[in-house]
């Protein structure tokens, strides 16, 4: 009998002492998950206080404002459209090494793989040369067929060769840019490649390399001044 009473008392004690433990738990949880508690409190606030509604206006005033708003929307849409390219353009995705050729309306003409900058830093003494495709909006400055590549200094540094003079014939390499090249400024180009198997991989020194068939279409679709978006 006594043992049973003792057991019952212990059981009651345990139950009673869980209350402070629970409170302690709530306190700790509140500190650990304050943003979640606040989020919940906002929901409760919305139920009890309600969200303040839009400013009160007469129906006539609202109709006038609706018309004004509609006019503003139309005018802004027109302004926004004016900023869009008026010629076909190309969009290059450097993360996936893909391109999308689009017409002036933004409809896709062709998508495909390309190769962009390998994001490499070539350290040559105190020089640090970055091989990266620039991002942003560019435009086609000029177009050339069978353009030879005039090798810059870094091409020799990378191959462990001595750098020749600026006008040396050894700087001229024919065929490595493919059949077509579109210059987008600062020495960067969209051109062909001898290494078609690397298309889809980031392997270039900053230019955008494209496969022969796609390049031909791009060359004939884009004209001088066409926009080139690289992201």
């Amino acid at each position: 009998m006594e043992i049973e009473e003792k057991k019952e008392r212990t059981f009651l004690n345990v139950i009673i002492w869980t209350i402070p433990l629970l409170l302690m738990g709530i306190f700790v949880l509140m500190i650990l998950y304050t943003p979640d508690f606040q989020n919940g409190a906002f929901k409760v606030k919305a139920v009890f206080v309600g969200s303040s509604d839009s400013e009160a206006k007469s129906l006539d005033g609202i109709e006038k404002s609706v018309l004004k708003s509609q006019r503003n929307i139309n005018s802004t849409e027109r302004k926004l459209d004016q900023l869009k390219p008026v010629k076909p353009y190309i969009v290059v995705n450097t993360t996936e090494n893909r391109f999308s050729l689009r017409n002036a309306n933004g409809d896709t003409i062709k998508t495909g793989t390309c190769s962009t900058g390998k994001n490499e830093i070539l350290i040559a003494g105190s020089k640090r040369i970055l091989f990266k495709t620039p991002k942003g909006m560019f435009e086609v400055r000029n177009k050339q067929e069978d353009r030879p590549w005039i090798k810059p200094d870094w091409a020799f540094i990378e191959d462990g060769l001595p750098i020749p003079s600026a006008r040396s014939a050894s700087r001229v390499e024919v065929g490595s840019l493919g059949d077509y090249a579109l210059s987008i400024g600062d020495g960067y180009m969209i051109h062909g490649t001898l290494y078609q198997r690397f298309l889809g991989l980031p392997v270039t020194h900053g230019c955008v390399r494209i496969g022969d068939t796609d390049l031909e279409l791009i060359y004939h679709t884009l004209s001088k001044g066409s926009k080139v978006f690289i992201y």
Partner: protein
Amino acid sequence: MKNKLAFWIITSVLSLFVIYALVSTVLMPVMTKNPLPKATQSAPEERAKTGKTNKANKANKAESNNSGDDDAIPDSLVSNSSKDARQKLFELRKKEALLHSRLTLANEDSMYLVLDFVSNTAILEMKGVRLHECHILDSDISNSIKMFHTDALLNWMAEPFTVRHVDATIPKISWVEKIAPKDSIEANKAMVEPAPTKLGDVYIVMDFNRNLRLVIAQNEKPDVEGKKLISAMRWKYSEIEIRKSIQSLTKFNREPAMPQISIVLPKSDATILYKALPVNLKLILRM
């Protein structure tokens, strides 16, 4: 007897602690502080950039506001049709604000992010051209934003948000350093066949002005390494909140709740967006 006394003392003290913590960390900031500070006026240079259109828009906005003040009537007298019209006006103003923000950013030479929660898409834009578009697979918007679905919200999101701080589990650019070879033999030896780069697991936290936090998570399950990185980043931000809460217990003054928008994107899209976005990223919201 002693036990009873101890129980009551401890329970009372703990209850007081809980109430105090509830008031200082949760109730006070929620009830007294506005989590959505009103949109700040753009700088004069920015205004000059956007040109006459914006000026005209602002003039129109001011005009419409003035006319509204004149016509103000008590809420109880507003009929249902008026409520519908007000809702329509609210939606139009949201659209107007979105287009206005888009025009402002399209005039700049930088890429920007548009989060459209109407069509559930994340769009990378430049000069009004959609460069990349992806579906938002899942999203969670704080109640502090949801409950202010009014003019206050409109003011808050009327202008583009500018990023203040970005944290991510992947680098913006994965640079590889290479020392120039001494001769052509060394260059030939160093040549490696290029291989596709492995995408790391993505978890991005972006803090914007006007008290907004954007969290971008990937849909795919992370690998062991990715899990560690993501957990570490989550813990880092939880730790900051815990510190703020503890401080608020001593100062009885906690900063307003930070509205958070969490979105889930496919891993590849999250990576593309993060790598493409400029350092001074601007964001437009459509809700």
